[in-house]
């Protein structure tokens, strides 16, 4: 086992900041599109493939996380702070997977084609079902309110 390095690997840092920018952009696009008539379509057309890109990067990130040795916590962090940091990291990973999947599932349940770009589109991951769609759509709203 390699020794703990002094800082995160370059690969981890690139993944981190790339995803930070994408996630923040995603939040802003999501908040704007539901309030906008004029820009709705343009924003949704970015929101869909960006969400899938985040899902792919989250998977890459998880693999990277497992096979990289991390720098240690700063010695000033207490045991409780370390627990909190680890728990919030797990939560963030869970959300990076869950939110794109919720969007994908919602479009599937709503009988929408999941268009990425040009003729490229993804298959449905759930059957078209109005009640299922409504549950997802309400969850999404819930997140919107929580996040704001």
């Amino acid at each position, binding site marked *: 086992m390699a020794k703990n390095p002094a800082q995160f690997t370059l690969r981890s840092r690139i993944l981190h900041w790339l995803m930070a920018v994408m996630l923040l952009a995603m939040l802003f696009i999501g*908040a704007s599109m539901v*309030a906008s*008539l004029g820009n*709705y379509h343009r924003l949704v057309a970015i929101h869909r493939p960006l969400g899938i890109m985040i899902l792919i990067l989250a998977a890459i990130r998880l693999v990277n996380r497992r096979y990289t040795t991390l720098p240690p916590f700063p010695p000033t962090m207490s045991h409780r702070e370390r627990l909190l940091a680890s728990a919030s990291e797990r939560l963030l990973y869970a959300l990076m997977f869950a939110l794109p999947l919720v969007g994908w599932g919602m479009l599937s349940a709503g009988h929408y084609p999941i268009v990425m770009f040009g003729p490229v589109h993804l298959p449905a991951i759930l059957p078209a079902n109005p009640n299922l*769609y409504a549950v997802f759509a309400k969850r999404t709203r819930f997140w919107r309110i929580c996040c704001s």
Partner: protein
Amino acid sequence: MSSSEPGPLSETPPAALRGAGLVLRFVLIGVVLAGIGGLFLYAGGWFTPHALSPDTMIDTFEHVNGEHPGFRRNHAKGVCVSGYFESNGRGGTLSKAVVFLPGRVAVIGRFALAGGQPYAADAARTVRSMALLFKLPDGEEWRTGMNNIPVFVANSAQGFYDQLLATAPDPVTGKPDPAKMAAFLAKHPESARAIQLIRSQAVSSGFADSAYNSLNAFRFINSRGVVTPVRWTMAPDQPFKPSDLATPGLSGTNQLFEALIAGIHNHPLQWHLIITIGQPGDPTVDATLPWPPDREQVEVGTLVIDHVESEDTSPARDINFDPLVLPDGIAGSDDPLLSARSAAYSESFTRREGEHKGPSAVSTAETGR
């Protein structure tokens, strides 16, 4: 995934912050968080509560028409159909969309009357709509919602919203307030012109002999990347018969729908998809303006509707006929109504899908199933 294994320490830990330094750090963190939070609220329209949004648009439909849970907030009364589109291949020079390759694609759709009241009586002058979903063999979809009027009554979301309020029945008289309508027409001369053009057209006898127009302009993109501005029309194969009930008040609340259902049972109904090719300078941004009548038109195929089914059982009930669900090779134009329709339809769809659904006015008994 724990990263808490202690590593060898090469540096001495920094001294803990105290006093002013600590306060400064907290203030900085607070400013960044508040800034991001504020921007987020701004993006979500929290600081502009009176701006027109998908929410306010659909709220207004509910306000004007009353609440009818489970139904579309507009074009609420309808019946579902299915059949196929037979492309003749001639659309291929204009658009690379798979739908224009020679051959047949499955279609499901819905005929409806404009307005948010699912049990309103059929009336000859009520706008008729045909909504279609073309299921392309590669999994793409083309959805379109068309009306039997030559131009649309508004050229902006605000104009449409103003018209909705101007034509709302007065709570006392039960009829639209003429003063409000006059004020609307004065504020929106483009709508006054469009309404005049719409009224000048003869109304056909029913759904089957109506032509349905895309109203909004779109762009066709072919395999060489050439972009063509277009509008389209589903022109009926059924010969035009003037409405014998051009004056309001048809006999029977579902007369138009019953005639459509009987027609499909009798013989499949057909429409020809006609693409009108716009020239430079033809308005694509304004759905109230017709294009010059001499524009080149190309017939690209035939729509055959051979099955009719009540909303109570058809999967078409749970489809949002969003006009911007388009295959590669067809794209929206600069018409601002397209994005507004997409946004408002989505809001209406999300609301109705979670609601308990009442029976359609055009019931399974009438569709003969």
